[in-house]
């Protein structure tokens, strides 16, 4: 009987006995993510489930990420199959108004310039000894676009999924802190004061409906490997603009997006097992991701300066910083910075145009990247 009692007690302390040093550290990391989400309001919809998932998976012997564990089932169903990021993209498309971009289509180019960081970081990651596909996954943090980063990483570098996702979402929420110093450094006072005038409403409903169709067909023909990403965001936008499927649009931007965000967050958190996550490699990934977003901002602003010259001084280079995909935070940062130097300057709608251009740009960059990799026979 004594042995039975000892065995029973042993069952109660086995969790403590099997605790690896990295597990408590990751539980603290999970708590930090929860703190950032709850107290600091940094992307709470993602950081709260990710943080809690990280805590769950670092409690030993739970079997949550073993076969038939509930987190493993969610992961296999939505992340391994790439379904969750694509469903989220339908919601993003349904929420996004590409009107400001269509008012001034040349701003599309700022959305392309805002993706330079992806490719420059990829080269840097290769130079630091990461494998080709790891470098692609690290570079894609520069897309500043969570679902795109998750889609590419889960497919080609799943062991980096936790680090890449946390980096992508954390840095996106830190855009208001990361971007202003770079914008200040790269522009003169005169440039910051350039008034771009009021955005006139000049896009017909037909153009808005045709936009997602044209992007899907042209983008899909150029970069077919990225069509799932491009097609889903454009489907969501077509539903929004055509106006005849409001029930589907509302479901996409609310119920579906909310449920998938919860499942996506918790299953990403579940990849953050301390034994796998706590490596010097993770810190390098986080540092490179930060660099990618800085490079995106710098390249966007510099391209904005080029556009300023080409248009005879009509473009305020600050809006180039909004050429990343962090929508609409980045556009708001541009508006705030512009008004610091010229209180009568309303750059918001111009920056929104660049920002939505950045959304299409980030998806297009990932699509092009995947198609180039396929063309080279790497995937």
């Amino acid at each position, binding site marked *: 009987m004594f042995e039975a009692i000892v065995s029973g007690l042993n069952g109660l302390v086995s969790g403590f006995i099997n605790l690896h040093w990295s597990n408590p550290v990751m539980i603290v990391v999970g708590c930090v993510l929860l703190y950032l989400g709850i107290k600091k309001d940094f992307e709470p919809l993602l950081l709260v489930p990710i943080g809690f998932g990280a805590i769950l998976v670092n409690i030993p012997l739970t079997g949550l990420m073993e076969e038939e564990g509930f987190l493993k089932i969610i992961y296999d169903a939505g992340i391994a199959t790439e379904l969750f990021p694509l469903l989220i993209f339908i919601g993003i498309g349904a929420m996004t108004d590409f009107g400001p971009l269509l008012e001034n*289509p040349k701003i599309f180019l700022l959305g392309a*310039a805002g993706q330079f960081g992806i490719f420059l970081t*990829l*080269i840097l990651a290769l130079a630091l000894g990461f494998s080709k596909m790891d470098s692609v996954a690290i570079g894609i943090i520069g897309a500043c676009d969570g679902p795109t980063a998750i889609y590419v990483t889960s497919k080609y570098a799943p062991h980096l999924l936790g680090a890449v996702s946390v980096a992508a979402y954390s840095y996106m929420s830190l855009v208001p802190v990361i971007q202003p110093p770079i914008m200040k450094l790269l522009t003169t006072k005169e440039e910051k004061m350039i008034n771009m005038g009021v955005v006139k409403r000049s*896009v017909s*409903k037909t*153009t808005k409906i045709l936009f997602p169709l044209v992007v899907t067909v042209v983008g899909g023909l150029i970069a077919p490997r990225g069509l799932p990403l491009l097609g889903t965001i454009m489907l969501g936008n077509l539903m929004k603009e055509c106006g005849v499927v409001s029930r589907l649009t509302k479901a996409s931007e609310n119920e579906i997006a909310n449920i998938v965000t919860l499942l996506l967050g918790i299953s990403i958190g579940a990849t953050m097992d301390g034994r796998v996550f706590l490596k010097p490699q993770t810190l390098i990934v986080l540092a490179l991701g930060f660099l990618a977003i800085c490079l995106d901002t710098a390249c966007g602003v510099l391209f904005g300066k080029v556009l300023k010259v080409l248009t005879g001084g009509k473009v305020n280079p600050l809006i180039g910083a909004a050429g990343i995909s962090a929508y609409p935070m980045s556009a708001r940062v541009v508006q705030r910075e512009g008004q610091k130097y010229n209180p009568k300057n309303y750059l918001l709608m111009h920056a929104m145009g660049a920002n939505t251009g950045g959304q299409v740009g980030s998806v297009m960059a990932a699509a*092009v990247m995947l198609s180039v990799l396929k063309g080279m026979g790497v995937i």
Partner: protein
Amino acid sequence: MDNLTFGVTMVVVGMGGTLLTLWVLSILMNVLKNIFPYKREKEEGKSMA
């Protein structure tokens, strides 16, 4: 394929391809805007309905 070739190819073709695609899309959007111009009264009438 060595890493240098891979990296340079990704930057040149990847970034170039992204820039080119978005440039083509911006031209197409301008064409669409010219074919289907915004007509204030008509559009606002539709939204009122």
